[in-house]
């Protein structure tokens, strides 16, 4: 009898306990894992660090961010293989903006309009992104109202310069005597530079080993300028496009589909002149420029090793130049905007090809993951985190953040950030992007290595694009 009573009491206690834990009490937190594929470099490392140190999900769930850091040279190949193989490994992917069309059409990247509409706070933050960045990083078709991505690390081209060389009194005097123009020394003076001034810097600072450079014999051959001129990925297109836009030319404009043509536009006289100008700079660059392998990493290396006076490169590579452990010029730096072209009204035209990357959601991400992903993106784009990111060497595309007076003090190049944004355009977002890019890179390489002139190069590109895009129904 006694035994039965004890059993009943135990069952009652067990029931009460289970009610306390599972029913009447608070529910247990779910574990949600977000998997992300990112290029391995400081902006993504910083994001992961901030997440691990600071992110507290509002839902109370245990949210884990699993990040695959993939080296830049393999990044596209790995991401492309992951997506097209159907392994469905990642919820988030840091994507170059140009990949949007190819992966949206393939059914891999998720449209986020519904998520924005469902959350006014989220939409408000999203719409505070600079329009150039929003169009480049999020829209497909380009400049449409279909949104896909959020800025992870926005980027633009800027001019890196060595003030110990360009501000030297003797060099200043000699430059003025030769070109009847002041050698740019401050950030503002660099901002005012045109490509002709940039070319003059290149010509002026070409010194042989042992010749005088800023009051001392040069330790090695020295060169005035460097810009990307490599065959790999987009390492000449990104520079040439800017010059073409600045000089009144255009690339094939996907916002004019189906009427926009490639023939006659891509190889217009203005575009040919722009490419000729670009090619004319090569002779003032380090000799590797003639091999077609001078990509952004090589120009960065040459600049950090003290071989050139000025280098046009992405902000994303700037952090290394400030690090005295890997930069011989870390304490000699001044930054300005990328050179421009003087327009008919006498003002500088500064069109440039945008850099940086958005991150996008994949279509197989579950509702639970999407809920947490949206919270994560809102946290990432929040003012506090964006300020911290900028202070750690990143950039922010949120107007309220980069307009803050504090922003320019975070890094020496930040002064150029806001004025550059209005001048950013993007290259094609269409699914044929990779074919367009590789053929264009091949043709630019032939011009860079001296195998054909600018006219032939652009004629070949225009013919190819006209044919490809007509077959795809994008030109009629």
């Amino acid at each position, binding site marked *: 009898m006694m035994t039965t009573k004890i059993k009943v009491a135990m069952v009652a206690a067990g029931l009460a306990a289970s009610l306390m834990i599972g029913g009447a009490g608070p529910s247990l937190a779910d574990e949600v894992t977000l998997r992300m594929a990112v290029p391995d470099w400081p902006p993504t490392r910083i994001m992961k660090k901030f997440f691990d140190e600071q992110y507290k999900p509002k839902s109370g769930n245990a949210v884990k961010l699993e990040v695959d850091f993939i080296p830049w040279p393999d990044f596209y190949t790995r991401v492309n293989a992951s997506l097209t193989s159907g392994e469905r490994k990642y919820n988030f992917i840091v994507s170059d903006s140009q990949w949007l069309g190819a992966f949206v059409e393939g059914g891999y990247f998720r449209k986020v309009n519904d998520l924005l509409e469902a959350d006014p706070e989220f939409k408000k933050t999203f719409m505070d992104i600079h329009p150039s960045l929003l169009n480049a990083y999020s829209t497909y078709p380009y400049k449409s109202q279909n949104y896909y991505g959020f800025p992870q690390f926005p980027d633009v081209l800027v001019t890196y310069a060595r003030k110990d060389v360009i501000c030297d009194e003797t060099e200043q005097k000699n430059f003025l005597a030769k070109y009847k123009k002041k050698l740019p020394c401050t950030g503002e003076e660099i901002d005012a530079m045109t490509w002709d001034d940039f070319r003059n810097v290149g010509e002026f600072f070409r010194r042989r080993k042992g010749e005088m450079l800023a009051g001392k014999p040069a330790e090695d051959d020295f060169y005035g300028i460097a810009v990307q001129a490599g065959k790999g990925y987009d390492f000449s297109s990104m520079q040439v496009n800017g010059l073409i836009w600045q000089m009144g030319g255009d690339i094939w404009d996907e916002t004019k589909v189906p009427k926009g043509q490639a023939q006659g536009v891509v190889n217009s006289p203005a575009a040919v002149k722009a490419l000729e100008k670009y090619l004319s700079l090569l002779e003032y660059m380090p*000799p*590797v420029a003639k*091999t077609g392998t001078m990509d952004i990493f090589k120009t960065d290396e040459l600049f950090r090793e003290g071989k050139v006076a000025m280098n046009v490169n992405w902000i994303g590579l700037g952090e290394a130049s400030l690090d005295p452990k890997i930069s011989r010029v870390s304490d000699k730096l001044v930054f300005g905007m990328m050179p421009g072209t003087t327009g008919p009204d006498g003002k500088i035209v500064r069109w440039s090809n945008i850099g940086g990357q958005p991150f996008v959601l994949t279509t197989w991400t579950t509702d639970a993951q999407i809920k947490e992903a949206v919270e994560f993106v809102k946290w990432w784009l929040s003012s506090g985190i964006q300020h911290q990111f900028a202070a750690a060497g990143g950039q922010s595309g949120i107007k309220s953040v980069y307009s803050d007076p504090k922003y320019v003090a975070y890094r020496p190049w930040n002064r150029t950030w806001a004025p550059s944004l209005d001048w950013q355009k993007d290259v094609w977002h269409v*699914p044929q992007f990779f074919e367009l890019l590789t053929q264009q890179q091949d043709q630019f390489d*032939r011009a860079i*290595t001296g*195998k054909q002139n600018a006219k032939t190069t652009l004629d070949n590109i225009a013919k190819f694009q006209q044919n490809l895009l007509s077959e795809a129904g994008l030109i009629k």
Partner: protein
Amino acid sequence: MLVLPPVSVPSLRTSPTLLEISADNWRLASLVGVVVSALAVAALPADVAFWIVGALVALVAVAFVVNAYRRRYYGGLLVAPAIAVLFAMNIFPLLWSLGLSFFAYQSNRQSIWFVGLNNYIKVLTNDIAAADNWHALINTGMFVVLTVSAQMIVGFMLAMLFAKQFPLRKYLLILVLTPMMLSVVASGVFFTYYYDPTFGILSYAINSIAGGQFILMDSKAGAVAGIVFADAWMWSPFVMLLVLAGLVSVPKYLYEAAAIDRVSAWRRFWTITFPYIRGLLMLALLFRTIEAFKLADLVILLTKGGNDTMTISYHLIRIANEQNKTSEGAAISYIMLFMVIVLTNLYLYLANRRTRES
């Protein structure tokens, strides 16, 4: 007269008729497999059809195995696992990609449709696509001739050197073999810096002697020379190893007899040494030619195909992997495969003819 007692042989089962349902009826299994697979491919979504076809292949395989077991084809059973692996890892992907080459399919799109020989016609005759393919193929031919020649000559000479005994031979041999053991990426990065006109030792050394600015990779000839040198540096030791194996197998008494007969060094080499290494030389030639035909890694690392050094393999990587034009890539692959098979058979024919003649 010896009379052998009768041996009782267990009776073997007779083969089932075509429509008899039996675990060993491989004919029926094959028929069902083909018909149901065709219907599944035609009527069902690709991802469902894939698994149905896979299950039917397994069914046919089981029928073959049961048939072999019941009829005591033990030899067949023993090689069955190897054939299964070969089928799963080689033959099936090969047939699958052959099939893809007759469709319009891009791996980053969800659509696929039959286009017959259009992909082959495009890669061979289209005025834009074919020009690039032929150009890359001609470059590949050039690299095959140059890299294989360089490797054969250097490898052969190294083998002749190391066939002799000399001080520190053992250590030098290890040193010479090292490049072959390095990863191609490591070697590529090494040569990138070696040839770099600003940081590289090659330009530095030549500039110090000749003055001026030496840039190896600024012309097609220089870029090709750079790639050929790097490839020969990596793979000449492989040729050396094979030739060395032939050289050490030559019986000493033949040389002793030749010495007694005062045979000249050239005749000694041609009549004694060469017959022993000829087969291995042909083997080295075959292996290295096939590999050279696939040359892409060093080109990617050193020039990215720039300066007119694009090879067909790198071109194929770009078409199939970067641009996701899977079917077009498959068509190029099969044209390459055809060429390699023709080339290989030509080598084997020549090698066998010489063997028969000798």
